[in-house]
């Protein structure tokens, strides 16, 4: 059974090599190969998850023969394995369900390049989830940024090029700040691996000057990752990037890439800086405040959007706000809520981004609300799955969205500070109303009357229905068995420190 300890390394190496291999395959072979090997990766991650749950302790895996402060390390516990499984499962669903649009949107000679980028993106996701080294995090963060830019521009229309420029500019600023913060941390601690860095920082916090440097470095690093993941003032690139990309890319970017940045940030807080040290920093309250602003402003923008994908993208900005709010609330319940919301939102938002193009296709290829009147009647499969996603986003019980909102509210209650609790509950209430307003409006629109109710698309296509059913199943599982997942996350957080 000890071979399972090696699986995280295998997932990364295999993904990197698959990315390179797709350069010489042709379109069809690349697709088959990618799906096959992503399945293998899912099995490997599942095995790691099983191993971590069974043994109940985290494993540190030394890359090469040199241990902690000198060589690179990987590390896995329940939380990392759970994230990896969730990410890969959603990724496979996105790739399968968007397959038809990949063929439509991308020139045939470039489809293999698209799959190469998907595989490299998988490698980056895996490496960021497993890594125990801040600088490895930076390198694979850059791969994640470049690949996500690549899967965005692969649909060669003017809007995506423009969206990619905006996306890249903001992301590069984020990368620059992240690198600077990381270098400042290295300058005072002399370590790049997370555990030795944490030990150094614990000593440095005793003196006021060095404590100031550590706090500022953390702040710069946080700002970098906040820009990259699209926290409130930096979320304006989202609608163009998510809305115009090919559906698979939009779903992957909104549900996986931005979540992966947040997971890296959380990992750095928890393991490199030390969660007690972080809890005493004022950055926490800034994150909380920006998260709240993000929820309100994102929802208001979503309400004003004229295009269904733009609405979904702005609602992503609001959901990012929930995650940062969970991080800002602190305490085990706050972090657990944030981690749960990462998974819940990944499962839900990919469902929405993958169904909207089908609705648009049934209404003359237009994503505008005006054109979408009655589109769910023309394409019932897509309408059904969109409804599932929308209900989950609104926070109807049984679905994942409800549980995560409940967890955030409970985390706010756990802090024991009256004003904080009140404001969080208030924001949650306002956002619930706004969420309900724009999603129910959309539902009424797509199920509304229209002259044309003839079925336009053959909706029982297995390459659409199967992944969508899988995503719905995950959504329901997260909603119905939220206690189980919360227990697992808490167990993972226990191993995480």
């Amino acid at each position, binding site marked *: 059974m000890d071979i399972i300890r090696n699986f995280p390394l295998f997932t990364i190496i295999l993904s990197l090599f698959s990315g390179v291999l797709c350069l010489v395959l042709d379109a069809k072979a690349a697709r088959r190969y990618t799906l096959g090997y992503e399945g293998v990766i899912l099995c490997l991650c599942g095995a790691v998850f099983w191993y971590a749950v069974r043994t109940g302790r985290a494993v540190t895996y030394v890359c090469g023969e040199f241990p902690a402060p000198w060589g690179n390390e990987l590390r896995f516990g329940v939380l990392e394995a759970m994230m990896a499984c969730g990410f890969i499962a959603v990724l496979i669903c996105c790739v399968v369900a968007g397959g038809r649009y990949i063929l439509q949107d991308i020139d045939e000679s470039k489809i293999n390049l698209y799959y190469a980028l998907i595989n490299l993106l998988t490698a980056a996701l895996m490496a960021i989830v497993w890594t125990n080294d801040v600088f490895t995090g930076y390198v694979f963060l850059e791969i994640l940024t470049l690949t996500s830019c690549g899967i965005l521009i692969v649909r060669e229309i003017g809007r995506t090029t423009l969206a990619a420029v905006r996306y890249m500019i903001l992301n*590069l*600023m984020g990368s620059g700040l992240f690198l*600077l913060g990381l270098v400042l941390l290295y300058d005072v601690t002399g370590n790049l691996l997370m555990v030795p860095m944490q030990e150094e920082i614990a000593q440095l916090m005793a003196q006021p000057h060095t404590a100031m440097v550590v706090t500022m470095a953390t702040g710069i690093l946080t700002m970098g990752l906040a820009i990259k993941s699209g926290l409130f003032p930096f979320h304006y690139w989202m609608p163009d990037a998510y809305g115009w990309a090919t559906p698979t890319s939009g779903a992957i970017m909104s549900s996986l890439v931005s979540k992966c940045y947040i997971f890296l940030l959380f990992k750095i807080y928890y393991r490199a800086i030390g969660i007690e040290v972080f809890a005493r920093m004022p950055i926490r309250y800034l994150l909380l405040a920006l998260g709240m602003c993000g929820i309100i402003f994102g929802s208001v923008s979503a309400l004003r959007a004229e295009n269904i994908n733009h609405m979904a993208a702005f609602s992503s900005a609001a959901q990012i706000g929930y995650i940062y709010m969970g991080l800002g609330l602190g305490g085990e319940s706050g972090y657990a809520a944030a981690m749960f919301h990462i998974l819940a939102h990944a499962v839900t938002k990919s469902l929405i981004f993958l169904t909207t193009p089908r609705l648009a296709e049934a209404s003359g290829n237009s994503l505008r609300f005006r*054109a979408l009147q009655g589109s769910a009647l023309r394409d019932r499969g897509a309408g059904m799955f969109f409804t599932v996603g929308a209900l989950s986003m609104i926070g109807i019980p049984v679905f994942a969205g409800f549980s995560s909102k409940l967890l955030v509210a409970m985390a706010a209650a756990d802090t024991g500070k009256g004003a904080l609790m009140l404001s969080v509950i208030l924001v949650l209430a306002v956002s619930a109303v706004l969420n309900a307003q724009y999603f129910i409006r959309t539902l009424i629109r797509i199920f509304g009357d229209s002259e044309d109710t003839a079925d336009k698309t053959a909706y029982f296509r297995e390459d659409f229905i199967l992944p969508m059913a899988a995503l719905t199943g995950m959504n329901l599982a997260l909603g119905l068995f939220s206690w189980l997942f919360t227990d697992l996350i808490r167990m993972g957080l226990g191993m995480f420190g």
Partner: protein
Amino acid sequence: MIGNLLANYEEAVAIILFGIGFTMVLFQRNLIRKLIGMNIMDTGVFLFLASMGYIRGRKAPIILDPSLPAESYINPVPAGLVLTGIVVSVSVTAIMLSLCVRLYRRYHTLEIDDIYRLSKHQMEDR
């Protein structure tokens, strides 16, 4: 603070470069200028790293004479980090330049405001 800054003058210069680059990326309206700002930003970080690793009176970390103690060489870690940073910067620059080529071919301008104005009138539904 000023005395400390004068002692750390090289790092201070690197930080100023970083700040200039960052603001250029944020506020210039021409894509090529944004790109130049980005490169200045990266260069600032590399200069910061290089000055961090430098130790007065010591040699480059190429150990020709194994009998010398470790105290006779500078810190090799920042050099490795700079190498990685440079490769990333080159890759990003290449992608941004090719994006500029595409945008110019389509809109015949690199002023980002003009491009926004033009793209607003484009009807591309799905």
